C-alpha cells in the first residue's frame, strides 16, 4: 500500500515537472526576440581552456551573448571533441555547434550523413557589410569540397592550417636572405649544415606516425601535383603506382633518411623530444605545420625568431601550399541550428579573425587580416602559391592512413626500407586493401 502511494505521488511529481518544463519551453518560444527564435546553443569546442585561441574564442562568445542575447553553453573539450561527438550523435543530446579540422569533421559528420547545410550562416552579413560566402576564398574551396549533394555548404571555415620548413632567423640569417627554392638547393643547404658539424640539419619526431608522411606527401604534391595522391590511392587495380613520379618522391625521402640529415635518434625518441631539440638549437630545420610557433613557444631558446620557407620545388617546377580548414559544423539533430549558424558567422567578423591571427598565432581564413610576425612567412607563401592542397591530399578511406600507408611510410622515413621496396609494398598493400573493402 505504501509502495503504491509512493508510486502515485512520484507519478504526480513527474507529471507536474514535465508540465512545468513544457510551459517554460512555450514561454521561451513566445518571448523570443531574435529572428532565429533560439535562446541558447551548446558548443563543443576543439580548444582547451588556457590556449591562446581559446581566449580569443571566449571573448568572441562573450560579445556574441551580449549582442544577440543568445546564451552560449561552451564546453572546452579540446581536440578529442569529435571523438566524443560520434556516440553523442546516436542520442538526442547533440551539441548545436562543433569545430575541428575538415578531415575530422568530414569523417565523423559527413561520411555518416549527420551534418546540416548552413545557408543561414553563409547568407549572414558580417560587420554589417559582406556576406560570409564572400569571405571564404574560392581558391581553398576549389580543393576542399564543403558542399553537400544539394549544393549547400556544411562547414564555415574560420582558420587555416598550412606548413613550412621552420628555422630560427637569428641563427640563420643566410637562410632568411636566400631560402632554398629547389630540391637541389635544399640538399646543398642540408649538406652545408651537416658539414658545419654543429646542430643536426633536420629535427623530426619520428614516433609521430602522422608527421612522417609530410615528406612523401609534399613531394607528391610537388612532383605530380594536387589530387595525384588521391588518384593513385583510389586506383583499385594498383596500376597508378607505376607512375615514375611515385618512385621519384620515395627516392627523395630515402635520400634524406640514408643521407643522415635527420637528427640522431629520430626513430627512437618520444615526442616532443626532437622538436624540443630543434627549439633549443640542436637542429636547424623543422618541417612542421603552422602551429609550430604556438606548440614550441614555451620551450624555445631565448631570442628564437620563428621564420619559415616553403617546401622546395622539384624538377617539375610545380609550387603549391598546404591549406586545411578548421571550421564549424552543425549536426543534423541540433535543436538550435539557427543560433549555431549565427555564432559561426559571427566569428568571421574582422575583429576576431584579426585576434586569431595576431594573438592566437593562427592563420585566419579571411585574406584581409594580418598575422603575428611568427606566421608572416607562412601566410606569404600561402597567399602567393598558385595552387593549394589538403593534408594527405584528402585521402580518408576507412583505416587506410593508419593501417596501410603510415606503417610503410614510417619504414621509409626511418631508413628501414628502400624507395623501391616502399612503392612495391604500398602498391601491394593498397590493392589488398581495396580487395578487402569490396
Amino acid at each position: 500500500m505504501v509502495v503504491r502511494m509512493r508510486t502515485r505521488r512520484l507519478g504526480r511529481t513527474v507529471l507536474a515537472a514535465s508540465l512545468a518544463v513544457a510551459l517554460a519551453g512555450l514561454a521561451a518560444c513566445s518571448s523570443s526576440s531574435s529572428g532565429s527564435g533560439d535562446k541558447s546553443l551548446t558548443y563543443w569546442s576543439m580548444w582547451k581552456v588556457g590556449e591562446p585561441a581559446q581566449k580569443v574564442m571566449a571573448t568572441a562568445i562573450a560579445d556574441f551573448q551580449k549582442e544577440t542575447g543568445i546564451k552560449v553553453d561552451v564546453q572546452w573539450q579540446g581536440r578529442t571533441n569529435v571523438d566524443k561527438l560520434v556516440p553523442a550523435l546516436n542520442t538526442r543530446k547533440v551539441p548545436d555547434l562543433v569545430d575541428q579540422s575538415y578531415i575530422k569533421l568530414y569523417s565523423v559528420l559527413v561520411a555518416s550523413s549527420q551534418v546540416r547545410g548552413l545557408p543561414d550562416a553563409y547568407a549572414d552579413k558580417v560587420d554589417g557589410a559582406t556576406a560570409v560566402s564572400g569571405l571564404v576564398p574560392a581558391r581553398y574551396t576549389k580543393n576542399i569540397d564543403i558542399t553537400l549533394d544539394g549544393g549547400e555548404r556544411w562547414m564555415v571555415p574560420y582558420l587555416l592550417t598550412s606548413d613550412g620548413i621552420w628555422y630560427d632567423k637569428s641563427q640563420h640569417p643566410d637562410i632568411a636572405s636566400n631560402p632554398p627554392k629547389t630540391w637541389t638547393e635544399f640538399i646543398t643547404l642540408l649538406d652545408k649544415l651537416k658539414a658545419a658539424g654543429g646542430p643536426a640539419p633536420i629535427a623530426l619526431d619520428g614516433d609521430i606516425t602522422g608527421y612522417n608522411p609530410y615528406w612523401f606527401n609534399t613531394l607528391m604534391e610537388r612532383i605530380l601535383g594536387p589530387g595525384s595522391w588521391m588518384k593513385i590511392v583510389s586506383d583499385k587495380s594498383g596500376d597508378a603506382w607505376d607512375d615514375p613520379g611515385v618512385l621519384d618522391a620515395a627516392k627523395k625521402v630515402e635520400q634524406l633518411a640514408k643521407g643522415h640529415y635527420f637528427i640522431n635518434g629520430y626513430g627512437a625518441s618520444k615526442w616532443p623530444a626532437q622538436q624540443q631539440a630543434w627549439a633549443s638549437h640542436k637542429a636547424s630545420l623543422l618541417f612542421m605545420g603552422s602551429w609550430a610557433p604556438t606548440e614550441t613557444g614555451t620551450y624555445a631558446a631565448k631570442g628564437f625568431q620563428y621564420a619559415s620557407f616553403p617546401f622546395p620545388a622539384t624538377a617539375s617546377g610545380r609550387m603549391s601550399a598546404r591549406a586545411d580548414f578548421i571550421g564549424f559544423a552543425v549536426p543534423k539533430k541540433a535543436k538550435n541550428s539557427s543560433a549555431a549558424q549565427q555564432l559561426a558567422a559571427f566569428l568571421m567578423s574582422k575583429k576576431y579573425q584579426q585576434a586569431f591571427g595576431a594573438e592566437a598565432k593562427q592563420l585566419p581564413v579571411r585574406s584581409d587580416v594580418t598575422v603575428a610576425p611568427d606566421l608572416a612567412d607562412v601566410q606569404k607563401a600561402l597567399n602567393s602559391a598558385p595552387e593549394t592542397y589538403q593534408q594527405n591530399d584528402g585521402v580518408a578511406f576507412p583505416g587506410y592512413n593508419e593501417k596501410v600507408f603510415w606503417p610503410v611510410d614510417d619504414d621509409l622515413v626511418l631508413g628501414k626500407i628502400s624507395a623501391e621496396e616502399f612503392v612495391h609494398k604500398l602498391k601491394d598493400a593498397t590493392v589488398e586493401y581495396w580487395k578487402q573493402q569490396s
Partner: protein
Amino acid sequence: MALAPPRVARSRPPEVETAARAQRTRRRPRPGGPFARERRRLFVPFVGPALLLYLVLFVAPIGGAVWISLHKWPGSGPMQWRGLRNYRRLMHDHLFLTSLTNTLKLLLVVGAAIFVISFALTVVLRDMAGKRGARAVLLFPFLINPIVFGVLAGFIFNPGGLANSLLHGIGIHDTPNWLDRDNMFPLIMVTMTWMTLGYFTTILMAGVDRIPAYYFEDCELAGANAWQRLRYVVLPLTWDVFAVCAVLWTVTSVKIFEIIWIFGGANGSGTPPTQTWTSAVYSYVTAFSGESIPAYGDATASAIISLLLVSVLVVLLRRVMRRDAIHF
C-alpha cells in the same frame, strides 16, 4: 611422508550428480517446508535487480556490439549490412593478426614472467626481515597510472635520456636505440611485468599467509629447501588463489591499452607504431582513428573476437586449473 602433496577426492562423484538431477526432475511438486518456500519467494527480489542491471549494462551492449559488427557503419547514421564479411576481413588483415599475437604475448609471456617471479617472491617474502615494507614497495608500481610509465619511458629512454646519460657516464657511447619501433614492444612487456608484479604478489602472499605455520615447521624438520617448500606446500595450498589470479590476469591482459597508447608516441597526434598494437588498440584506432572515416563494424568485430578469445581462455584455464578447495 609429511610432505606428500595433499590430494583430495572430488567431493561429488559423477554418479551422485546424475542421481541428484534425476531426483530433481522426478519430483514435480516443489519441496515444501516454510523455509524453502520463503527462500523461493525471495529469489526474484534478491537476484532480480542484479540480474536486470547485468542484462542492461553488460549483456545488452554486447548484443548491440554483435549487431554493429555485422554492418558497415561510421558511428552514426545509416548502417549497411555486411554479414560476416567484417570478421572474414579481419582474419585476412595482417595488422589485426599481429595485434592479436601481441595480446597473446602479453597474456602468456608476461603472465608467465609475473607468476614465476611472484612465486619466487612469496618464498623470499614470507620470512624476510621488513617484509611489510618490501610488500608495500612491490605493490607501489601498480598504484601508479600506466600513463606515468608511458611518459617516464621518454625521460629514461630518449636519445638524450637518463639511460643513455648513465651509459655515456661509464664510457659507453654506442648506445642502443631504446625506443626504436622494434624494441618498443619488448620494453612494454618488461614495464607491464614490473607494474603488475606487486599486485599479484600481494594476492598470492595473502594466500600464503593463510597456510598454517606448522607446515613450514614440518618443512624445516624434514630439511626441505626453498623449491621443495614451494612445490609441496605453497603451490598446492594456494592453488585456488593462483587460479583466480590467472583468470584476473587473462581478463586484464586482453584489455591492455593505455600503456601502449602512451608508450608509442600517440600523445602528440596519430597512433602508436603498429608493431606495438594489441587487439584493444586495433579496435580503438579503427573506431576513433581521427584521420579517416570511422569503421565501427570492423572495430566491434575485433572487440567481439577479443571477447570470444578471453571467454575461451578463461573456460580453458578454469578447467585446467580445477582442483577442489582444500580446507585447513
